[in-house]
């Protein structure tokens, strides 16, 4: 039992280890995939935003180049209508100041920086609102664009669904940030981050993408599948090993049984041969000596007569050996052990013993529960019932798998109790029926033909009978009748 526990523990441990190893591998693979997707998305976002903001440089450069007259038709004022990300365009002619406004100061400073750096400059950024001005100093007229980041985002080409995606995307400068996409940002065991400055020198904002991966996002379904598969494989392996061990044990038992039987038979044969050959030798020698004595001239009649008398006596001795052997084989037990036995208990016990056989063949059993107590030798009765059930189960192998039925019924009939074993097998051919109880007669391939013969002798020794016939279930019916126990006959 202890061994059983230990071995079962080892199987569970193996299952747990394999599940853990496979689970970790699957989780790592999933995390690696998520990280790669995240990086790809981050790069795409960076490129898209960079492309957008570079356009503003181009717009400013074009305006500076064309320098539309301050008093002309002012085509630059049509830009907000074409590009919704450009909220307005402000111009600063050399001979006029920047228009009044809250950002005039910032614009002036940015223009000065722009002039020095010879590129556009950001003025008055308000990142939380996604607004900033972009100024390019030029002669004769400097221009500034008021830009709305929200309208800048190219949602059509966006690699993620902004409402569903767990990735938070922000545009940052210092500690101020515009949130492009909120993501589902929570504390999680794994965090991915992507940070890269926009590819436009004039607008040095960082694109920052972040996401967390929670436990819930691990491939639990696949891990569970793997765990189940490991469990099934181990169970199959265990079953196979167990089956192999059982088969080995059975083969071993069979071999031992055969060897023991052969030994016994060999001993029996040697003893029997000697016992019989001694008188036969004497018979033959006496008879042949007598013939020789009679052939003598003159024939020795008296001596020959003595020899023949001896031969006859020895022939009788040989017959006695055979008789002794018969008695030995026929009556291994005396009839003294008869006692009240409940038939259904014997049936129940025998069926319990044969449960594996029954299951293996998929036989449906109907078992009677009537209480019938007969006068019998319990061991002999068990042997008979066991034999009858084994025969029925074997016969059912020839029946279709879905029609294998076996019924054991008990009842009483006058002073006798009876037990009937019915099966739905092929039954006994009519021509074989009178011979089924003969020793060494068998309808089964490889059958020794001793089982039923033994059963009948045992039944007879207990004052009962065993008969065979056709069953209403289509197969064979064997009926055992035994005297009811005293007091049980009612």
């Amino acid at each position, binding site marked *: 039992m202890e061994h059983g526990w230990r071995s079962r523990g080892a199987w569970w441990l193996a299952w747990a280890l394999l599940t853990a190893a496979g689970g970790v591998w699957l989780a790592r693979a999933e995390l690696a995939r998520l990280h790669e997707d995240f990086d790809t998305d981050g790069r795409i976002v960076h490129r898209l935003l960079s492309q957008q903001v570079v356009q503003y440089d181009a717009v400013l450069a074009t305006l500076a180049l064309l320098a539309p007259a301050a008093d002309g038709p002012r085509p630059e004022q049509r830009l907000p209508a074409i590009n919704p990300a450009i909220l307005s365009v402000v111009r600063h002619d050399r001979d006029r100041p920047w228009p009044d406004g809250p950002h005039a100061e910032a614009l002036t400073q940015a223009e000065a920086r722009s002039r020095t750096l010879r590129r556009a400059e950001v003025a008055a950024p308000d990142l939380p609102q996604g607004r900033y001005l972009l100024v390019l100093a030029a002669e004769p007229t400097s221009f500034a664009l008021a830009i709305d980041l929200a309208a800048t985002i190219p949602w059509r080409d966006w690699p993620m669904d902004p409402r569903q995606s767990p990735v938070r995307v922000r545009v940052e400068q210092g500690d101020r940030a515009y949130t492009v996409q909120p993501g589902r940002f929570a504390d999680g065991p794994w965090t991915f981050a992507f940070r890269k400055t926009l590819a436009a020198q004039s607008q040095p904002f960082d694109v920052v993408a972040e996401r967390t991966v929670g436990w819930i996002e691990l491939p639990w379904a696949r891990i569970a599948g793997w765990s189940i598969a490991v469990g099934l494989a181990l169970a199959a392996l265990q079953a196979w090993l167990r089956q192999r061990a059982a088969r080995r044990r059975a083969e071993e038992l069979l071999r031992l049984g055969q060897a023991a039987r052969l030994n016994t038979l060999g001993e029996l044969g040697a003893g029997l041969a000697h016992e019989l050959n*001694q008188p036969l*030798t*004497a018979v033959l*020698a006496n008879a042949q*000596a007598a013939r020789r004595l009679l052939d003598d001239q003159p024939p020795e009649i008296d001596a020959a007569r003595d020899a023949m008398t001896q031969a006859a006596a020895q022939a009788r001795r040989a017959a006695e050996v055979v008789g002794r052997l018969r008695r030995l084989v026929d009556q291994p037990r005396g009839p003294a052990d008869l006692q009240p036995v409940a038939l259904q208990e014997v049936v129940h016990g025998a069926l319990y013993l044969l449960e594996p056989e029954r299951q293996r063949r998929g036989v449906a059993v109907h078992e009677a529960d009537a209480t019938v107590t007969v006068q019998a030798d319990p061991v002999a009765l068990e042997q008979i019932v066991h034999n009858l059930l084994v025969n029925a189960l074997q016969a059912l192998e020839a029946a279709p798998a879905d029609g294998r039925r076996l019924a054991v019924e008990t009842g009483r009939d006058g002073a006798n109790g009876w037990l009937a074993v019915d099966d739905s097998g092929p039954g006994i051919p009519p021509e074989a029926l009178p011979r089924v109880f003969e020793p060494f007669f068998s309808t089964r391939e490889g059958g020794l033909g001793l089982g039923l013969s033994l059963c009948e002798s045992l039944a007879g020794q207990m004052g009962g009978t065993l008969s065979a016939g056709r069953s209403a279930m289509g197969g064979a019916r064997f009926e055992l009748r035994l005297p009811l126990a005293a007091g049980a006959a009612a």
Partner: protein
Amino acid sequence: MNAPQSPVIHLVDDDEAVRDSLALLIGTIGLRVQPWAQPQAFLDHFDRHAVGAVVMDVRMPGIGGLAVLQQLVAQGVDLPVIMLTGHGTVEMCRRAFKAGAAEFLEKPVDDEQLLEAVQQAVRQHVASRERQQADQTARERFAQLSEREREVLGHIARGLTNKEIARVLALSPRTVETHRANLFAKLGCESLVQLIRRYAALAEEAGTP
């Protein structure tokens, strides 16, 4: 040669009926049968000098037939032994012959077969005893020869003529002639062929130069 004895067949079997019937059967061809119920009694008391044979069962209580056979061989008994068995296997047969059995027969045994085997064994034994007897007599006669006569015998056996022997032994041919005549008389031989057949081996054995 001693006076010829009538051969005796020792019949060893624990079963009285078998013993009696086989004794009767063997008796019908005029052979004397000595029955033994106990193998040990047979080993202790049988006449080792008489010619004959042993007919013995393999399976007996106490010591078995094969063990008895082995003891006989170990004691240098030259009686041929016929083994009988009721349950013969190839293995048992092999062991019996290896142990020195003259014949191995299965019970129940047919009279022709048994009697033929018994007669054959007796003939064999008589012949072997006669050969032994002759050897014995020759040895006794050879012992009576003088040293010089043995030398001459050795040279005769090697095929030398009288003259050659005289030269080898530095004797006169006439003396050799005398020794030669004495040799024939003492050894009881009538021809050179007889002399050489019976005594050449002995002369060789005695180591004449």
